[in-house]
């Protein structure tokens, strides 16, 4: 098909409710704000004695992780359980694909088990879109990271963390630092920050870790920390994978740390009340100095807490959108038969 299918058309129901959560790109500001508001209400719940709400009672959530992950998988599992869903964790990287089963066959098998929601992580960009296309309209799909494309729940938990500390987005200057090239987190953050209307988004990295035409996403490109961090309100660090040293992308961890590692000295370029964030797991002494990671401006552990709330929010919203759509389809089918 050559007619463009904008990202939002597959994610939203006809009346604009979320039915899949695949990318932050193309979603209206009101919807992102709704995710943040819903998540806010879940944040405090984690501190209560009884941590459960019945929003997904009787629903089955399958975590389909085609790529290994412990942290993201556990927060999704916890989020689903706090919504009272039954949870199935499938580490598919080591089972079906090893036996030669195609992704499509795996999906058809799981759909036949009548799961209501798939939380999907896959190493290929666009995998979540592909899966959503295959299982619509029976199953809601939440993207837990696809290749370099998107990691929308990570981006939204970052947005929640920023909002809870800074209140408004519009006056903020935000810098994203590190391996932009390979980062699905950075792409999702950039789309969310733009939609939420921050004053300025910067990316800071050596040219080898910047994808070509990154400025077309609406960011300013910097290659030096001293200039890029000047007067920013939020510093969002990215994880640098060790295998990047094995190619010609970077000479060594120590050189990267010297130039782009977030130290207290470099953080001094930013505003005095600048926030420091990192999606984890952190490489101390590679991307970030321990004093900064553990320091008063670091929100790294807040991010984890907020991550569960954001995941609860998008899971409950997508399930409700999915049910609305299924009811619409059923009633229109009934009307057609009548």
């Amino acid at each position: 098909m050559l007619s463009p299918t904008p990202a939002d058309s597959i994610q939203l129901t006809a009346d604009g409710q979320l039915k899949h959560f695949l990318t932050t790109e193309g979603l209206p500001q009101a919807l992102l704000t709704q995710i943040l508001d819903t998540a806010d209400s879940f944040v405090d719940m984690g501190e209560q004695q009884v941590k459960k709400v019945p929003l997904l009672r009787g629903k089955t959530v399958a975590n389909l992780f085609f790529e290994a992950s412990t942290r993201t998988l556990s927060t999704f599992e916890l989020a689903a359980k706090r919504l009272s869903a039954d949870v199935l964790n499938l580490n598919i990287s080591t089972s079906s694909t090893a036996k030669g089963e195609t992704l499509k066959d795996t999906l058809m098998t799981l759909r036949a088990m009548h799961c209501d929601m798939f939380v999907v992580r896959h190493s290929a960009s666009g995998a979540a879109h592909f899966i959503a296309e295959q299982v619509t309209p029976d199953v809601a799909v939440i993207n837990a990271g696809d290749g370099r494309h998107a990691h929308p729940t990570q981006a939204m938990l970052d947005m929640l963390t920023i909002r809870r500390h800074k209140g408004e987005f519009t006056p903020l200057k935000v810098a994203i630092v590190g391996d932009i090239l390979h980062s699905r987190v950075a792409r999702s953050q950039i789309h969310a920050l733009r939609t939420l209307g921050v004053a300025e988004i910067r990316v800071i990295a050596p040219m080898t870790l910047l994808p070509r035409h990154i400025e077309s996403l609406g960011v300013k490109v910097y290659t030096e920390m001293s200039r890029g961090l000047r007067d920013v309100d939020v510093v969002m660090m990215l994880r640098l994978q060790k295998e990047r040293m094995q190619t010609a992308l970077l000479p060594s961890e120590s050189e990267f740390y010297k130039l782009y590692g977030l130290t207290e000295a470099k953080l001094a370029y930013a505003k005095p009340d600048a926030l420091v964030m990192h999606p984890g797991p952190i490489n101390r002494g590679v991307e970030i100095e321990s004093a900064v990671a553990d320091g008063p401006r670091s929100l790294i552990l807040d991010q984890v807490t907020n991550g569960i709330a954001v995941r609860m929010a998008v899971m409950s919203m997508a399930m409700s959108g999915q049910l609305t759509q299924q009811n619409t389809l059923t009633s229109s089918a009934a009307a057609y038969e009548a």
Partner: protein
Amino acid sequence: MKIKIQGGRVIDPAQTLDEITDLYIQEGQILALGEAPEGFIPEEVILAEGKVVCPGLIDLCAHLREPGETQKGTIASETAAAAAGGITTLITPPTTRPVVDTPAVAELIQDRAADAGFCRVLPMGAMTQGLKGEQLAPLHALASSGCIAFTNMRLAYSDSLVLLRCLEYAATFDLLVVFQAQDASLAAKGCMHEGANCTRLGLNGIPEAAETIEVARCLLLIEQTGVRAHFGQLSCERSVHLIASAQKRGLKVSADVAVHHLLLCDEQISGFDSALHLQPPLRGALDRAGLRQGLVTDILAAICSDHQPQDLISKQAPFAETAPGMSALETLLPLSLQLVEQKLLELPQLIEKLTLGPARILGLDAGSLAPGSQADICIFDPEESWVVNEETLRSAGKNTPFFGQTLKGRVCATLTGGKVVYRRH
């Protein structure tokens, strides 16, 4: 069999002919145009009023998938599709399994094509054994077995010395060498043009330099060896400039472009539609403009289909994991006609790019309706619209981004060697 094709608009760039007239065919050859030869009594009359009658199309690159990948297409299925697309001669690359690096495989392809009887199939031979880029394939033996040209497709030569030796050896016998230029290390795991859209989608890009660097390297060695060379399916504007300057210096180089690169660009890949996963990739809008300009200025002498049929499952996966290519034989003519609609080319100019142009590149005695020529003829209705779908496509590959679209221009009949191989009822 004596056939008269009556009342069509006969366009034959080889004779600079464009007029409404009749065509007479006898014993597989064109006997005459205009007035009936004395004593000619046709056994069949094909009425062509309102239709265009032109030489059968010559397609410089069409994958047939046989031997080795017959789940994606067979010589019979794909040559039937070619006939339905008005194509009477097609050149097929050596990337079969086994590859065309022995006379036996080259002969097998030609024999099966002859058995199917739809169109002439001329295989390209592998430049290196197993297309591995290391050792020379038996070029002379392959040429004697009907290989029209030699290529390593997009598989890398292990180093520049191997490439140089290949060109020197091919030049010894004045063989035509074809490049689908792409530097393997720069293309790496890429699956689309390295542009803004690729960054947005988080896919691995194939930079423009992957093509231009290889074009430049090949041109320097072509100049050194004096080999006859052709560049197939160029995708970048800068490649066109490189070819133009080489032609200006007097090098014997030609180039073609796949029709979809003249119409589409990377901006169309807005979602993750695997039908648009192509190799070479759709480039930017400026590249498309450069290719169109190259066509007008005759730097690009031919338009091809770059037909790459895939089975359903090869296209049903996340974008990068799908197989590249589109099924393109049957859309070659209607898509090319859009260039006339868009006033880029006049109809006779377009027909030249699909017939005489590729014939000259190959040094083939084909692509003409002059008396004495083999009667390879395409008759089409430039106004008739049709929907590209499961029923209308004869190719085993239904993988086209034009699926479901209505295209204008439809083949009514195709004759290969004076035999009607396709007719729409």
